[in-house]
């Protein structure tokens, strides 16, 4: 046991020393010449709303020539750390992805590759002891809040239905911000909240939405695929989330809270390039003030939303942008009312 640990430590010292000596040269060379090698690992297909925003930002950066982008999609959680290792071994400078289901394993991999930077969607705060591992999430509560103001103005029955996947922080905080916005424009709104226990079961999301519409909801908060379809079939309205689906439901989707991953990714790329990458929470780069989220244009609903509501949206947006108004972040599980 002793000899083994001794041998390991000697090898460790040699390897570590070598890395320390050569790292600055390697880093400088990479900065001067090639675009940064970025690899992404997604647990779902790139069509999924949340991941599609990351994929879009990475493709944009690749087109600009800032990065060289490769990705693996639909990687199961049980396989996630292996793929992380592969990309780390392949010499990628930055690895991005989502570790909501593999928080511990992903951090263990990161500890083994201190020269690779990791930027991962995560429910946990960054760990200062793991300097190459940063976290992000879609903190788009500003835009959700504004979309709520519009929803409150559009509901006739004063009943709003909300169908979510799982009540995890990322979902909860947007629902809360949305509900807060609704209450600003219509104080007596009643909410029906339900979770379907799956990210990808549009038929089930649709059935749940039908049940809410039968129960009187006339505006649906579409957190999952399938909800807008139910709304369209029954002729009620929907509010989109993360992506803009109005083109598919021109008569149904009034407004959407959009997530823009570009500020998050660009900040990470810059940090890796100038060597300042460290354990940080990139969540703030999704705030409206950083350009990380926005309210989609009204499009087909231009002129159909009451003017008072749009004035309130403009006013609140200005307050958010000036820093005067900070939309509260509430990660608790939302409840029906």
């Amino acid at each position: 046991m002793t000899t083994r640990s001794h041998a390991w430590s000697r090898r460790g010292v040699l390897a570590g020393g070598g890395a320390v000596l050569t790292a600055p040269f390697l880093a400088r060379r990479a900065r001067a010449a090639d675009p940064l090698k970025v690899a992404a690992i997604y647990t779902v297909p790139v069509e999924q709303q949340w991941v599609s925003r990351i994929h879009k930002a990475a493709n944009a950066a690749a087109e600009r020539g800032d990065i060289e982008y490769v990705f693996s999609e639909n990687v199961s959680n049980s396989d996630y750390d292996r793929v992380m290792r592969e990309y780390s071994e392949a010499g990628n400078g930055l690895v991005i992805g989502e570790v909501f289901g593999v928080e511990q394993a992903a951090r263990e991999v990161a500890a083994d590759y201190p020269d690779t930077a990791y930027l991962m969607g995560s429910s946990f705060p960054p760990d200062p002891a793991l300097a190459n591992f940063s976290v992000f999430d879609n903190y788009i509560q500003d835009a959700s809040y504004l979309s709520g103001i519009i929803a409150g103005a559009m509901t006739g029955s004063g009943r709003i239905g909300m169908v979510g996947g799982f009540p995890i922080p990322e979902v909860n905080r947007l629902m809360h911000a949305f509900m807060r916005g609704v209450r600003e424009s219509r104080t007596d709104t009643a909410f029906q909240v339900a979770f379907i226990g799956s990210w990808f079961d549009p038929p089930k999301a649709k059935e749940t939405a039908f049940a809410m519409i039968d129960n009187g909801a006339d505006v649906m908060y579409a957190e999952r695929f399938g909800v807008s379809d139910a709304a369209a079939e029954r002729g009620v309205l929907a509010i989109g989330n993360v992506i803009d689906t109005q083109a598919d439901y021109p008569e149904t989707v009034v407004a959407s809270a959009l997530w823009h991953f570009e500020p998050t990714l660009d900040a990470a790329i810059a940090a890796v390039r100038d060597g300042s990458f460290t354990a940080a929470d990139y969540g703030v780069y999704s705030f409206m003030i950083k350009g990380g989220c926005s309210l989609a244009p009204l499009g087909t609903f231009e002129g159909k939303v009451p003017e008072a509501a749009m004035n309130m949206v403009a006013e609140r947006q200005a307050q958010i942008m000036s820093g005067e108004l900070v939309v509260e972040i509430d990660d608790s599980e939302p409840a029906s009312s």
Partner: protein
Amino acid sequence: MAAALEILFTASFWVAAVRIASPLIFATLGELICERAGVLNLGIEGIMVAGAFAGWITVYSGGDLWTGVAVAALTGAAFGLLHGLLTVPLGLSQHVTGIGITLLATSLTYYTYRLALPEVTSPPKIEAFRPLEIPVLSDLPLIGPALFAQTPFTYLAFVAAALVAWLLYRTPLGLALRAAGENPDALEAQGLSVTAIRMGAVAAGSALMAVGGAFLTMSAFNSFFFEMVNGRGWVCIALVVFGSWRPGKALLGAILFGAFDAYQVRLQGVVGDAVPYQVFLMLPYVLSILALVAVSRRASYPRALMVPYRKGER
């Protein structure tokens, strides 16, 4: 309490129950045919994924809806033949092979999906089956809308159930199929081939499973998502036991499960936050297990289920 009971008397609840049950009816019948012939088919979950994709992509590339259903059935039959080949003439473990088929079918589906649609932002939609109200009958209270204001695809599910029951109990082929699962030696003594009957049953059953999957992308929804089958195949395995390997009971079981599921989403709205949402999601499964316990005591499974047949062996 009154509000919770009132749900049962709304037409929309019964419509939803039958709608949710429809894919389960197809897949349960499919599994039932396989098992009646003596072959457990755990490939069901993957075959449903493959069917969901095959039907949808056919319509997306310009085929009409019924062609899509046919292509889904053929895709299912192809996987069924593979499962049959491995488990019937080769006599491999039906459990292991079935799980293998599920893994193969899901992965192959995803691979094909990505080849066909390399660059899409959200999965494209098709024009799915629309509800077709049958005049007069659809005006009956509760039952009317539930049974006669559905999409043609749902009507097909009921037709399939009747057809399978007739085939199993009223035709020589059905007799042979049941014999293959009860007493293959007797079948062989009749000069019929157990291998052929079992292979045919697994292929036909798998075709029905795939059609059940296609219901999800062509009637319940109008687009394909990779994980959308979401365990429905496993539910059908239990429904076969619940129906004690009889098509009529299996049909009722599927509708009962659909009703539990439709009920729990509506109950969430009535009961609200007093109970965590997971309890509601669990409800259809818990009730199914309880029903299974009550029913399966008297269930007699096919005698030769999961027993490979080797000709001349004693």
